[in-house]
Structure formats: structure tokens, C-alpha cells
């Protein structure tokens, strides 16, 4: 942020005391380390999915499973359509989050409020889409421990597919939900002028990191479950 740092200090000097070696506040550094540990949690889920899929002879075809969308006529066959919408909702809400962080850096309260509201709407829209999809799959007979979908080659499938699907998208959805709650708290704090009083909007930046991470995880979940 500061434009006064002209000479880049050597490694020894940056750790010599008197300045922030990472040039970042404590909370932000800790948010990064939390996100790193969360990445390992999601990574463990996705790798176990991959391991089970690699160790199984057959696997359901995602295009045959995820092929409907809200208000679709019965028996519609539209693979990838609905999940594309979900993906774009999350990307757009990530963009509005960046804009909110940027507005915060400029101490632009109106910009923060506007973009936080848009981000929250995006998050709620995504959760609604996921709720619809879960409900739809449940009514098709899919749930933890129940898999009505045959393998792509027409052989009998195990319940691994639905177990992993509901566990991983559920865990991700829980993160989205937490992110929406955090964003709502940030919006309320902005409206109460908390950050104006503090003189900075660094909290928005930390909430933003979390929200981008949720988007990042969806990039992986979307690709691995729906495309591969």
C-alpha cells in the first residue's frame, strides 16, 4: 500500500526487527495459513475420491447424472448446463469481492457496501442452486448410501459415487454458507462505520481471501466431479 518503500531491503534486514518481514498484518498471514490447511482438507477429500475411482472398475458417467436444471421438462437431457451457471455465479461473486476489497483500500464505503451486497447475493444464489441440485438428486434416489445411477458401461455401481459427491459438495457448500455469513457480518460492520473508525478496511480483505478460496475449491470440485 505504501509508496514510500523504494529500496528493497535484503533478507537479513527484513528479519532484523523493526519492520514486518512479510509486509502483511498478522490476521492476513494467519488467514493464509488457515486456507492452506483447509486446502489440505479439501485435497484429502478429492484425492480419496480419485483413489477410490482409480481402484474401481466402473464409474457413473457425470453427464448422465447431472443433466437437469430447474423448471426443466421431464426427461430433459442437458448435461453441464446447470453446473456452468453455478460456476459463473461463483466467478462473478469472486469478482465483486475483489472490487469490494479494492474499494476498501480506497476508503470508499459506498463501493464496499455495493460490492459486498452483490457478493452476498452471488453466494446465496449459488447455495440456492446447490440446494436445488441436492433436492433433485435426492428425488432421483441418490443420497449417502444410495446410488440409483449405473456405471457408464451399464454395470452395477457402488455407492461410492454418491457418498463422495454429497460429502465433498456438502463440505464445499458449508464453506460457501460460512462465507456468506462472514460477508454479511462484514457488510453490517461496514454499515456501522466500524472500518471508517479503524481507519482501514483490512477485515474486508481477509473475508475476501476466504471467499476467493471458496471459489478456488469450486474450480477443483466442478472440474473433478462434473467434467472428468
Amino acid at each position, binding site marked *: 500500500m505504501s509508496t514510500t518503500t523504494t529500496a528493497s531491503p535484503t533478507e537479513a534486514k527484513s528479519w532484523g526487527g523493526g519492520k514486518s518481514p512479510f509486509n502483511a498484518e498478522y490476521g492476513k498471514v494467519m488467514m493464509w495459513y488457515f486456507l492452506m490447511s483447509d486446502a489440505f482438507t479439501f485435497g484429502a477429500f478429492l484425492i480419496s475420491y480419485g483413489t477410490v475411482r482409480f481402484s474401481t472398475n466402473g464409474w457413473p458417467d457425470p453427464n448422465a447424472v447431472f443433466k437437469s436444471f430447474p423448471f426443466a421438462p421431464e426427461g430433459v437431457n442437458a448435461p453441464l448446463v446447470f453446473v456452468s451457471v453455478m460456476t459463473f455465479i461463483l466467478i462473478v461473486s469472486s469478482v465483486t469481492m475483489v472490487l469490494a476489497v479494492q474499494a476498501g483500500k480506497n476508503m470508499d464505503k459506498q463501493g464496499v457496501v455495493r460490492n459486498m451486497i452483490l457478493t452476498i447475493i452471488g453466494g446465496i444464489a449459488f447455495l440456492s442452486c446447490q440446494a436445488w441440485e441436492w433436492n433433485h438428486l435426492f428425488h432421483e434416489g441418490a443420497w449417502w448410501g444410495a446410488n440409483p445411477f449405473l456405471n457408464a458401461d451399464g454395470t*452395477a455401481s457402488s455407492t461410492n459415487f454418491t457418498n463422495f459427491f454429497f460429502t465433498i459438495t456438502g463440505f464445499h457448500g458449508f464453506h460457501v454458507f460460512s462465507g456468506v455469513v462472514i460477508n454479511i457480518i462484514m457488510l453490517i460492520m461496514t454499515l456501522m462505520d466500524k472500518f471508517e473508525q479503524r481507519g482501514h478496511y483490512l477485515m474486508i480483505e481477509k473475508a475476501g481471501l476466504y471467499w476467493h478460496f471458496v471459489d478456488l475449491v469450486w474450480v477443483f470440485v466442478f472440474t473433478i466431479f462434473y467434467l472428468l
Partner: protein
Amino acid sequence: MSHSHGTPAEQHAAVIAEIKKVTIILSVLTIVELIIGFAMIGMTSDFLRLAAKGTIVILMMAKAFYIVAYFMHLKHEVKNLIMTIVVPLALFIWFIIAFLADGNSYKNLRNKYDRHYQEQATIKVEKKEHGAKHEGTHEVKPADAHEAPASH
């Protein structure tokens, strides 16, 4: 904001331009992924399917890079901070190779030594009727012996 100089207004404009650029890149990458995904429907060649999946994984990594580097701003952080985050994540390289190879090996060993298991994977079954869901454990049958009397 080490990546831009000038007045705050100019810096702001530069950041907004960067956000726009990254948004367009992410959208294009997603659209290309989806095009490949649609192209894969009905694709029968194993080689082409593998190539398509490999391309999708590369595009996925590119998207992850753009989100982390620009939206999460990691590219503009101090190098030491970047390293403390990225270096531990390198463990994933080993995780992915080791676990997927292990899964694959387990499948091959099982197919080799458990003939029954392997036969199950060749027997086609009828898709269950819709309706009357979640009423019993018999709704969904795993690949068990009762499913396929032909194997006895």
C-alpha cells in the same frame, strides 16, 4: 501495490484493469473447459478422452493460478510469504501420484486375483425404475453375488 506506480487514481485504474483482464481470462478458460466437456460426451476413443481430461486438468490449474495470484493477490506479496504457502502445497504432487497409483494397483491386483470381482464388472444390469425412493436398503444393490446369477 508494487505492480503499479503513479497517483492513487492511476493505481486504482491499473488494478481495475487487472481485475477485468483476469475476469475475462477466467471466463474464457471456463468456457473452453465446458466446450471440451461437451465434446467428450459420446467420445469413444480412449486416447482422445485421456487427452481431453489432461487438457481440462491443465486449464483447471491455470484457473487456480489466476484466482490465487490475482484475486487473492498472492503474486504481489513478499516472496517469503509466497514461499511459506506454496512450498508446503507441493506435497500434493506426491499425494496425487502416490494415492492414484495405489488405487490403480489395487484395482489391477483385485481383478487379477479375485475373478468374481472382475466378472461383476462385465455384467450389465437394468436401470432401476423411478419413484418409491429411499424406502429400503434394497433400492441400490452393490455389485454382489445376488445381482448376477449367471456368474454361478
